[in-house]
């Protein structure tokens, strides 16, 4: 249980008379916060307002557009790539959705399975396996970038969905989180299920997974956020225009729309909005997940 802090008074019960110095401090704090908040939001707000400004009219791109138009969005979504008339920003958007979903779903199952087995079942080499999982967290991506590329190339997975998905289906962090969680579940639950004749699979599927909803929620958000915004790996293995994901598409899009900021910003807003929505909806789980990762890490 978190105890709320109150830094200016030792206990919240007595009302103290604030000195003018303290009032000034409070005002300063708010000023800092508001200026900071504005700096945080300004680029995004400017991007959105630019996306609503018509390219055809020579405006200066101010923070608040003088005339709002949605034509940029229509143009951006159906913008034909220089490869093929049928391949548009919409295609890239769908690619991103597909890759994100196909990483998140299976990864949750793979990680929770491993976490459950490591937490509950006695198999030979359990500790070794656990340390292996932790070790993967310490290996930065650039070290394996080149050989991973060669591996994927030999598997004929360049320019494919599998190539973007499969290498990331297992994560040491995920396994760690699930293992920690499953260890907190009382054994009686499992024993009862075993007495009733449940197989290991059924215990996992019908009992453990439903219980793990909070962890699943947190891990899902991380995976979604990470896969949607992933840039380096798709950049390395995807050359086929039809397979590109949003981040890749944006760099190409920028090249084609260098002078048309309105359309460009519309495309970027389309790319950014989904994650913003996900974040706003799942804020609490997200913040909890990050602090959990930091505290235990």
């Amino acid at each position, binding site marked *: 249980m978190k105890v709320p*802090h*109150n*830094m200016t008074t*030792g*206990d919240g019960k007595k009302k103290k008379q604030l000195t003018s110095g303290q009032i000034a401090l409070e005002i300063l*704090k708010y000023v800092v*916060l508001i200026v*900071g*908040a504005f*700096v*945080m*939001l*300004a*680029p*995004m707000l*400017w*991007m959105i307002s*630019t996306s609503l400004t018509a390219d055809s009219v020579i405006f*200066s*791109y*101010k923070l608040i557009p003088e005339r709002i138009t949605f034509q940029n969005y229509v143009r951006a979504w159906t913008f034909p790539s220089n490869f093929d008339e049928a391949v548009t920003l919409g295609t890239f958007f769908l690619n991103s959705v597909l890759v994100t979903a196909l990483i998140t779903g299976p990864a949750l199952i*793979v990680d929770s399975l*491993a976490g459950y*087995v490591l937490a509950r079942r006695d198999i030979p080499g359990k500790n070794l*396996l656990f340390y*292996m*999982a932790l070790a993967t967290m310490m290996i*930065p991506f*650039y*070290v*394996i*970038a*080149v*050989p*991973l*590329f060669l591996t994927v190339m030999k598997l004929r997975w360049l320019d494919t969905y599998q190539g973007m998905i499969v290498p990331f*289906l*297992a994560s040491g962090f995920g*396994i760690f989180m699930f293992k920690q969680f499953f260890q907190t579940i009382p054994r009686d639950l499992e024993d009862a299920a075993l007495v009733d004749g449940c197989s290991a*699979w059924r215990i*996992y599927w019908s009992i453990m997974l439903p219980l793990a909803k909070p962890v699943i929620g947190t891990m899902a958000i991380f995976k979604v*956020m990470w896969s949607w*915004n992933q*840039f380096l790996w798709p950049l390395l293995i995807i050359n086929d225009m039809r397979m590109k994901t*949003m*981040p890749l598409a*944006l*760099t190409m899009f920028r090249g084609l729309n260098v002078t048309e*900021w309105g359309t*460009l*910003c519309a495309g*970027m807003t389309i*790319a*950014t909005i989904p994650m*913003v929505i996900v*974040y*706003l909806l799942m804020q609490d789980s997200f913040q909890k997940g*990050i*602090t959990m990762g*930091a505290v235990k890490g």
Partner: protein
Amino acid sequence: MVAPAYIIFLVFVFVPVVWAFYLSFFDYSIMSLRTPRFTGLDNFRRIISDPVFWISLKNTVRYSLGTVPFRMILGLILALILDQTRLVGRKLFRTIYFLPVVTSMVAAAIVWSLVFSASNNGLANQLLAMFGIAPKGWLADSRLAMFSVCVLSVWKDLGYVMTIFTAGLQGVPLELYEACAIDGATAWQRIKFVTIPLLRPTTFFILVTEVIGSFQVFTQTYVMTQGGPGYATTTLINLLHTKGFVQYDMGYASALAVAMFVALFILSWVLRRVFRAEDIVY
């Protein structure tokens, strides 16, 4: 049941790591049709004698120095301010500060490249115009380009650092603050003698992860400035990407990766020794 996870680890993590070390001793170019030949330490020698490597190293260090301290200090200040439950709109502020973190770095980099656009339409130049200062070619000027990248990077991840500090602040026992109030300590004294020392484990964690992370910067410089102008914003990973995936000189790229891995491993070990988080005695 653990098989799926560990098969993936094996194929896509552990084997590649070993392979990376192996590759670094070879002249491996998948463009040329000849088989890779063993060249021993030649790749490493090539790296050391490559001026672009040293420029990238310098740039990466400059980037690290230009982002990590700012993120940490600003993050700490914001976390401290937002730690008071009495504050109006506390949750709203936290949300706003975290928002850049969830955006795609690619989109953020493109937006900021527009902000720092050399034209009069760029937000930065519009701001300068308000003060009567002439517009600058932010990304074309080799002195300002890295600055622009640093601004983008601090802006992007500030909320994350702030969140971790907030979590750390929650761990400071309330009784200590009450003791401060009883002893008549000022807010500044309280921060200096209680809050900051007790935040040491958190600060230490953030410092190490941020420093190590900052050396792996790639996307910002690739998208915002393409490593330019010239090599002014080329970082180590930019170099790795160019060598390995544009020039397909994979021996060089692997050697670079291996060298970075070892160097950063040592760096993180050194950081741990120097900033060792001891147990806090109350």
